């Protein structure tokens, strides 16, 4: 589904990603871990098409298409979804109107007619119940005055509504208490299926107790320095990142 080859990127002339290689197949759950400043969020930004990042080398193939050639909206229309670490508040745009616009723009891209209001509302209700999103927030302005937890749940609700092929969750656990974390994780788990893939970016192992990954990758200094299974996350929880950093530096000096 997604193939990242030797991806290098920089922001304001500063090298952030220094040769990422990663293969994600459908149905898989990948966790990206790593210490602060290792490039985790940058990777998600580059994939989603944030404009202040410049790709200097490498390629990303998503469902057979060169992802880096596409505008952010076309990446979304092709089935990529980024759950933001800091969802934006947009006063004056209602949550429902926003979702309807997004859904219909995606449908138009695939030569599908826009959803009738009735169908849209039915879908909304179904997904809102599935991921346990408060119906009272639907008519409110997008994320305006939402608590941290409500914002993250709204990201998962949008994910459910837009039904992407690949969802990237960027530190979705940050700022959540344990109850909110459980609800968000339960929502994500309900959306897992054999056709959909996930890339979960997190600093802590805690989230991975609820969303169990097939693979865990450790990003450090713009590169994936170690790949393993869920046990790797436990090891990191126990030992921290320092031993890995040392390993990397030893390799470099050899």
């Amino acid at each position, binding site marked *: 589904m997604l193939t990242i080859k030797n991806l290098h990127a920089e922001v304001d002339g500063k090298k952030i990603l220094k040769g990422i290689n990663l293969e994600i197949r459908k149905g898989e759950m990948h966790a990206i871990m790593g210490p602060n400043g290792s490039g985790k969020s940058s990777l998600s930004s580059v994939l989603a098409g944030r404009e202040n990042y410049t790709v200097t080398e490498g390629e990303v193939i998503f469902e057979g298409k060169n992802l880096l050639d596409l*505008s*952010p*909206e076309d990446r*979304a229309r092709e089935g990529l979804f980024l759950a*933001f670490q800091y969802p*934006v508040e947009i006063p004056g*745009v209602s949550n429902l109107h*926003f979702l309807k*616009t997004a859904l219909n723009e995606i449908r138009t891209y695939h030569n599908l007619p826009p959803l009738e209001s009735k169908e849209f509302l039915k879908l909304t209700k179904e997904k809102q119940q599935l991921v346990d999103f408060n119906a009272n927030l639907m008519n409110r302005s997008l994320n305006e005055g939402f608590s941290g937890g409500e914002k993250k749940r709204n990201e998962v609700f949008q994910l459910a509504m837009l039904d992407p092929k690949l969802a990237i969750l960027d530190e979705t656990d940050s700022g959540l208490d344990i109850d909110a974390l459980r609800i968000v994780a339960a929502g994500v788990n309900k959306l897992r299926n054999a056709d959909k893939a996930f890339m979960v970016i997190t600093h802590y192992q805690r989230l991975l107790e609820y969303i169990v990954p097939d693979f865990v990758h450790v990003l450090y200094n713009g590169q994936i320095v170690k790949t393993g299974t869920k046990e790797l996350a436990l090891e990191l929880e126990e030992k921290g990142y320092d031993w890995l950093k040392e390993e990397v530096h030893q390799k470099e000096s050899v």
Partner: protein
Amino acid sequence: MTSDKSFYEFISNGVPGPEQKVDADNAIMPARKLAFSRFKELGLPTIKTEEWRYTNVQRFLKDAFTLAQEEQATVTPDQLKAANIPQLDSYRIVLVNGRLQADLSELPTGGKITVSKLSDAAGNAQLQAWFDKHPHLQSQPFAALNAALFADGLFIEAGVNATLDKPLQIIHVYTASANAFIQPRHLVVLHKSATLEIIESAVGLNDSAIAFVNAVTEVVLEENAELWHYNIQSTIKNSRHIYHTSATQKADSRYHHFNFTLPSAELTRNNLSVALTGSNTETNLHGLYLATGSQHVDNHTFVDHLVPNCNSNELYKGVLLDDANGVFTGKIHVHQDAQKTNAFQQNNNLLMSEKANINSQPQLEIYADDVKCSHGFTVGRFSEESLFYLRSRGIGEEAAKSLLVNAFAFDITDQVHIPALQDFLAEKIRQYVAGAINN
């Protein structure tokens, strides 16, 4: 006093003077003559005139104009479609160059609200009492010129406790086969406890000649009267507009005024002023200007707190695209006697192009000590993060930008009390933003 000799000379000596005007019983002839000498004395403003610093009106007056307006320009119902507001149920008053067209209008009947031609009502006691009396008009050259030589306009009078079951839509049609200087004049009087909703729309029919509109509307709210006054300014490219709207509010009255200035007149200068002469009044001034191309939009507002215990609240928001130029001047004058005044003013702007420009200046003059007053001004560009968020959900750049502009305008449109008008404005904003992006 004058620098544009040609237009000033033309008006002073080249056209039939006020003594040639025939209103009913010539009842306002003295007022016309007074106004004419006032105009001659004031002269035309230049950019050295403080109130016209950022609007060089001279360059819009260079063309040769005629004051002779087509008495019977033919307008078909089809041509009025441009002013159509879908789903709006309203009475309709159609004016062509300021002249009431009874056959195209649907006036309220049998109630306490009367609509007539100003020229026919010249002898009316209310008109005699109020015509050209507003204090803020006395120093305004274009208002004086209008009073002296206006062609015709509307006189709307709502009796004590009068109310209407639906809004009154006034459709101003401006048409000229040769460059014309068009001067409509209106007076709206709401007697004690009357309430009314007025929606003004403008239609331009011909862009081969320039229509320069110099219009004045005086509004009088007697005790406890309430007026919702929406002004939608959208006309053809080749038109230029100077509006004066001057209201007088007596005790306990409520005035809600909205200016929506949309593409694509070359010049729009709004002079909106309110004199608060009775206590416990409420004044809400809302403005939204969305300018594209090389439009010049200038809003001058003046809230005059003369007596204690009045509340005024003003919010003007601007979206400037392309090479558009915006000006906002908000004056609040709180007189020494006007204790317990609440006066708030806010002007926010969104610049959507490098070449767009805004000049904004609040002018607060406060001579009372027990008051609450504030003002604020912001100018910003798009939040790139908001735009990226919307695009990352599959929403194209154009749709995302019109969503954000509509969101920016929401504080204003949300105050509109007529749902059909809210929808109409949202759709207009969408169209104009899309049009500007695709240009």
